[in-house]
């Protein structure tokens, strides 16, 4: 990607490089723990400077470039904003495969627990028990937040990518479970 047009486009900013990683893009340190307000601010600033609306009167190539930048900035923001996506991205940057496609042998006790959760959600949903679903939702939120705290330690203090990848695989199941719970609650409300 040519840097010169990008730097012209950014008018006075440091020239941006499309191959730069998402943390550098927002001038943030490469870490799991991240100040949400800082990310939001960096995103708003950057998006304002590359927004295609600003280039409505520009020539085709400048407009196309602005569009690419805008897409890239959005992708970066969505990736860094959500903790699970951020964790997977950090593993990707560390060239550590999370093996989420072919690693089917999670610890049996973890899978049994997941199966029991899914059964409980299905039962409460079938019974239209909104109170129970809400209760499970609270429990799961608490579990998620402590698991993400642990992930912060693994990434930022211990740089233990093997353990982090294991926690990320578990979190993928738990996030799916939370989505199921949300769906069940919405179905009960309907």
């Amino acid at each position, binding site marked *: 990607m040519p840097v010169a047009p990008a730097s012209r486009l950014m008018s006075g900013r440091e020239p941006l490089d499309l191959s730069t990683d998402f943390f550098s893009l927002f001038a943030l340190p490469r870490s799991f723990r991240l100040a949400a307000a800082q990310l939001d601010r960096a995103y708003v600033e950057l998006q304002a400077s590359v927004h295609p609306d600003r280039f409505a009167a520009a020539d085709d190539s400048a407009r196309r470039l602005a569009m690419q930048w805008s897409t890239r900035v959005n992708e970066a923001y969505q990736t860094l904003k959500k903790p699970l996506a951020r964790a997977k991205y950090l593993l990707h940057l560390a060239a550590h495969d999370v093996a989420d496609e072919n690693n089917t042998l999670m610890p049996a006790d973890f899978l049994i627990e997941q199966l029991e959760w899914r059964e409980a959600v299905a039962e409460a949903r079938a019974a239209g028990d909104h109170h129970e679903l809400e209760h499970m939702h609270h429990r799961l939120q608490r579990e998620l937040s402590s698991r993400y705290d642990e992930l912060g330690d693994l990434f930022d203090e211990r740089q233990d990518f093997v353990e982090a990848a294991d926690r990320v695989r578990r979190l993928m199941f738990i996030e*799916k479970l939370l989505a199921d719970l949300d769906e069940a609650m919405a179905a009960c409300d309907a």
Partner: protein
Amino acid sequence: MAYSVKVLDHYENPRNVGSFAKDDEGVATGMVGAPACGDVMKLQIKVGKGGVIEDAKFKTYGCGSAIASSSLVTEWVKGKTIEQALDIKNTQIADELALPPVKIHCSILAEDAIKAAVADYRKRHGEAAAG
């Protein structure tokens, strides 16, 4: 994405859904999960004399293809010895159900569930079953 007729058939009329008491004689349990989609699959086999699988049950939380894959393998493993059951390959499951490439991992999950169940059986009954 459109499901094949066979996937729909298994999805709408899943065979052998349920559980055996896990400590019953000859019962072994395989638990597997696919992080990419958050699917969880439990396959149980009931092994009789001579290492022949007499019955099988499954419980899967996942997409239609994952449910169909596990339903299908419960039918396929019945009447087979545990060694024969291990010969079931994910490609056969994917072919039978006409799974599209993005759903191949569901058939891998089902194959791995058989392996996990057989491994559990051998762990529990190892020498006794061989003798």
